[in-house]
């Protein structure tokens, strides 16, 4: 099976010489849900921007569904990779810029050449998936943060990506909005990459985790195993929030993880 995302020896240095990634090897299989964990400044966002060719590795190679993104990749290749990999950015205000929700959701598909009824269908389905159909004609600026986050997700879902990359999806959300977003994400079965330092959220949504520290990939394994190792977490400035307990038994798939609040 072709890997959804395959990184081999990826290194990246910013033009000012600051090295951000050091020889990263990572393979994500289709349908897998992987959390990319790490403290602030570890290179998580830089890694994310490599997955759709916004940044190009100074060394090594990035392959998305068998399509290689090299330094001299053609425009068409980059375009196809950007369609396959959908990135939901941390601040929805950076992502939503059109006058109405529906126009914003249509922005991506139109760029990728979808028109007519197929376009209307895409917009409708994406908004329905995040439960925002009722707000399609509103100005994104007038929605709550949770609603804007869901619309930002819809703008990416409308491009029908094979890989969904989410940057800190839970930041600034109240507990209910957080759970609602988890409900939506658990209902989508494309490959997920969750870039976060919200460990309970990662534990709920992912099966596998990698830890990034100062541009190095320092750990890779089943998420509950990694999170159950306090020494490992402490070494990389990660810790579970006070009062949080990992589930004792590992549910087989994230879909089976309870998303409703525990009773009693």
């Amino acid at each position, binding site marked *: 099976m072709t890997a959804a995302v395959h990184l081999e020896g990826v290194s990246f240095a910013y033009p000012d010489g600051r090295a951000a990634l050091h020889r990263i090897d990572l393979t994500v299989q289709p349908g897998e849900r992987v959390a990319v964990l790490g403290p602030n400044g570890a290179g998580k966002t830089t890694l994310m*921007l490599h997955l*759709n060719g*916004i940044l190009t590795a100074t060394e090594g190679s990035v392959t998305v569904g068998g399509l290689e993104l090299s330094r001299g990749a053609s425009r068409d290749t980059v*375009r196809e990779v*950007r*369609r396959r990999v*959908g*990135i939901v*950015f941390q*601040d929805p*205000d*950076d*992502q*939503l*810029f*059109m*006058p*109405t929700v529906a*126009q914003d959701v*249509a*922005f*991506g598909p*139109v*760029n*990728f050449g979808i028109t007519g009824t197929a*376009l209307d269908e895409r917009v409708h389905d994406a908004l329905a998936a995040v439960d925002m159909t009722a707000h399609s004609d*509103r*100005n*994104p*600026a*007038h*929605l*709550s943060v949770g609603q804007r986050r869901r619309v930002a997700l819809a*703008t*990416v879902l409308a*491009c029908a990506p094979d890989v969904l990359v989410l940057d800190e999806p839970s930041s600034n959300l109240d507990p209910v909005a957080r759970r609602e977003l988890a409900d939506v994400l658990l209902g989508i079965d494309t490959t997920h990459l969750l870039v976060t330092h919200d460990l309970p959220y990662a534990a709920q949504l992912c099966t596998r985790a990698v830890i990034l520290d100062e541009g190095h990939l320092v750990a890779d394994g089943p998420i509950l195993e990694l999170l159950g190792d306090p020494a490992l977490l402490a070494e990389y400035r990660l810790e579970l929030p006070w009062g949080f307990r990992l589930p004792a038994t590992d549910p087989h798939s994230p879909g089976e993880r309870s998303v409703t609040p525990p009773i009693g």
Partner: protein
Amino acid sequence: MGAGHAHPLYLDGTSPLHRLPAEVEIVCAVVFVFAVVATPREAFWAFAGYLAILIVIWRIAGIPIRWIGPRMLIELPFVTLALLLPFAEGGARVTVLGLSLSVAGLYAAWGILVKGTLGVLVSLTLAATTPARDLPLGLARLRVPAMLTTIVVLMLRYLDLLTAEVERMRTARLSRGDDPRTFRQIGATARGVGGLFVRSYERGERVHLAMLSRGFTGSVPTVGAPPATAALWRAGLVPAVCTVGICVTAWVLR
């Protein structure tokens, strides 16, 4: 976060004017304003005609005069300038209520006042019947370069965001004991503007990254209501044709 959050200059409605595609309304408004400006200011009857056309449009669109009134205040600075002219200008003078006024100045003041007022009224009518979200689409259909419509789209979206940011910064300053009545606030505000500039610049970069990630290639796609039909163009341009007619007649009769 209510549902009725539209632009303060937009008056929600379902009149034929509201349903008219934005491109027709833009062309009509621009032609109207040009006709008003080109009319010789001595043709008083022509300006009455323009006002009559506007009143008919307001009746059709369901815009009450009391809604227009307060929004006219934006014109005040220009009115002040116009009122000074009859005193400041030279040439022949007339005496009105014991005041010696310049005839040329009076004509100039009248010209500024009436043309400015009609211009503001036309703009308000356009704004009241065209949702801001339809403007970029209308402009694009009028073959305005993609770069400009993109800028309009981004401005519409981020101006509100910037205003909110300024307001939050001001609240935070006031919470720390800054007194809005003193001149000291000017310094703090200036530094705030600097910070805001840097933050907006950084946001601009992030917005661009997010747009690239969704396949942005240089122009914002225009999707929305279908373009205006020939019949709609003919109906929508009636006021523009009337104004041009009045303007031409005014020149002929001069």
